[in-house]
C-alpha cells in the first residue's frame, strides 16, 4: 500500500519518515553519487522538504520499500531553483502542476522485474493522488533512458528542453500530463484495478 504523508499527518509517520531520509541517502548519495546531498547523519533532507511537500511511501511488511516526492510548482522546487538550465522558455507552474522527484526503490526490491512493479505502483499512486487533488500534470527530470518506459505508462510527456548531460547522464526535463487513461494503463500493468493509496488509519500510527 502507498501512504501519502503531508504536513497534516507527518507527525504520525515519524518512524517511516526516518526510513525515507535513510533510503534517500542510500539511493541518491551512496548509489547515484550525488555528493552535494551527502549528510553526516545519513539522512538526506534538503531545502525542499518543507511542510508543502507531499511524500508517497510504498509500505510492505511495515517497511518503506519505495518513495517519491511531490512539490507544488507554485513554490520553489528543483527545476526552478537547481536545474532551470534544463528548461528553455518559461517553466510550467501553477496549482495543477506538481513536481515529481526523488523516485527511489529500496535495493532489496530491485530484482529484475520487481523494481518496475514498485515504480508502477508509485506512478499509480501519484496519478490517484493527483486526480483527487485537481492536479493534471507533473514536471520532472529523468535520464533520457527512462523516458521510453515513462511514455509507455501513457503519461503524455513533452520535453521542456533538449537533453543535457548531468553527472555523465543525458537528462531531460518534461511536463507530463495524466488522466484516467494513464491510470487505466498503470492498472493494466499491475494486473490489479484496485487503488494503491491506503486510507490513512490514525489508530495504526498513534502509538
Amino acid at each position, binding site marked *: 500500500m502507498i501512504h501519502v504523508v503531508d504536513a497534516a499527518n507527518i507527525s504520525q509517520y515519524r518512524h517511516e519518515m526516518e526510513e525515507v531520509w535513510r533510503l534517500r541517502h542510500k539511493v541518491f548519495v551512496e548509489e547515484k553519487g550525488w555528493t552535494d546531498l551527502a549528510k553526516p547523519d545519513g539522512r538526506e533532507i534538503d531545502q525542499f522538504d518543507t511542510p508543502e511537500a507531499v511524500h508517497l511511501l510504498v509500505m510492505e511488511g511495515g517497511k518503506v520499500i519505495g518513495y517519491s516526492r511531490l512539490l507544488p510548482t507554485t513554490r520553489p522546487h528543483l527545476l526552478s531553483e537547481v536545474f532551470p538550465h534544463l528548461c528553455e522558455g518559461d517553466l510550467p507552474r501553477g496549482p495543477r502542476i506538481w513536481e515529481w522527484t526523488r523516485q527511489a526503490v529500496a535495493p532489496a526490491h530491485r530484482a*529484475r*522485474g520487481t523494481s518496475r512493479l514498485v515504480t508502477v505502483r508509485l506512478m499509480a499512486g501519484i496519478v490517484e493522488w493527483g486526480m483527487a487533488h485537481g492536479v493534471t500534470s507533473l514536471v520532472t527530470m529523468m535520464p533520457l*533512458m527512462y523516458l*521510453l518506459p515513462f511514455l509507455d505508462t501513457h503519461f503524455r510527456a*513533452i*520535453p521542456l528542453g*533538449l537533453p*543535457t548531460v548531468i553527472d555523465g547522464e543525458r537528462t531531460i526535463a518534461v511536463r507530463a500530463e495524466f488522466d484516467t487513461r494513464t491510470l487505466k494503463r498503470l492498472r493494466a500493468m499491475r494486473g490489479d484495478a484496485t487503488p494503491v493509496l491506503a486510507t490513512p488509519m490514525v489508530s495504526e500510527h498513534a502509538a
Partner: protein
Amino acid sequence: MSRKTLDLTLAYLRSLDRTASAHDVAALLRTVLDRYGVEHMLAGTIPDPGTPPGRQYGHALLDGMPTEWIRRYAMRGYLFRDATVRHMAFSQEPFAWTDIAARYKDDPISVRVMHEAGEFGIRAGVTIPLMTLDAKLAGASFSGRHMEVPPEDVGTLQLIATYAFAQLLLLQGTAAKAPIRLTSREREVLQWAADGKTAWEIGEILGISQKGVEHHLGTSRRKLGALNGVQAVATALRMGLIA
C-alpha cells in the same frame, strides 16, 4: 541554436501524434532525419539469443531496411553476430558504428556482416539502445551510405528515436484491439512459415499443394495488412495469433 532545435523537436512530436501506422512513423522519421543522410532504419526489441530466424523479425516494430538484406540477415543468422547488436549488451549509450567496429574485428562473421551490409548501401549508422518498461533491451538503428550525426545532435536523435518507439508501441497496442480472425489452415501455414519453412515444405507437411499454401499465405497477409510473408508472420506473432 538550441531554441530552434527544441521547436523542431516539438513540431516533430505533434506530427508523430498524427501518425496512424508504422509506415507513417517511418515516413516522418525519414523527413526529420534526412539532414543526417538517413536512408534505412530499423526499430524493435532485441530477441533473446537462440531465437530462430523466422521469429526474430517479429520483434521489429518498424522495418525500413532493404528487403533483400533483411532476408539474407535472417537466413544466415547474422543477428547475434552483428557487432551493432552485440554492442548493445555492453552499452546503453547511442553509438556510431564506426566507433565500435574495431572492437569486433576479431570475429570474422561480424566483419562479414558489416561488409555485406555495405553492399546494400548500409555503410554508416548510429544505433540508439532503448529499454522497455519490462526491462527488455530494444533499439533503433539509422543508417545510410554517408550517414553522419554531429556529436552535439546525438541527444536529440536519442530523443526523436525514443518518442518514435513509444508511438510504435502505442500503435501496436491499438492495432491489437481490432480482432483479426485467421482460419485454422491460415494459422497452420503461418506457424510453419514462422519456423522458416518454405511454401513447398509446408505443403509437404500439411499434405496440400504449394499453390494451396500460397493461397492461405495470401489471404492471411491481406487480413493482417502485411506487405509480404515475413511481415505477416511478424504481425501474427505480435498479435499472438500464432506462437
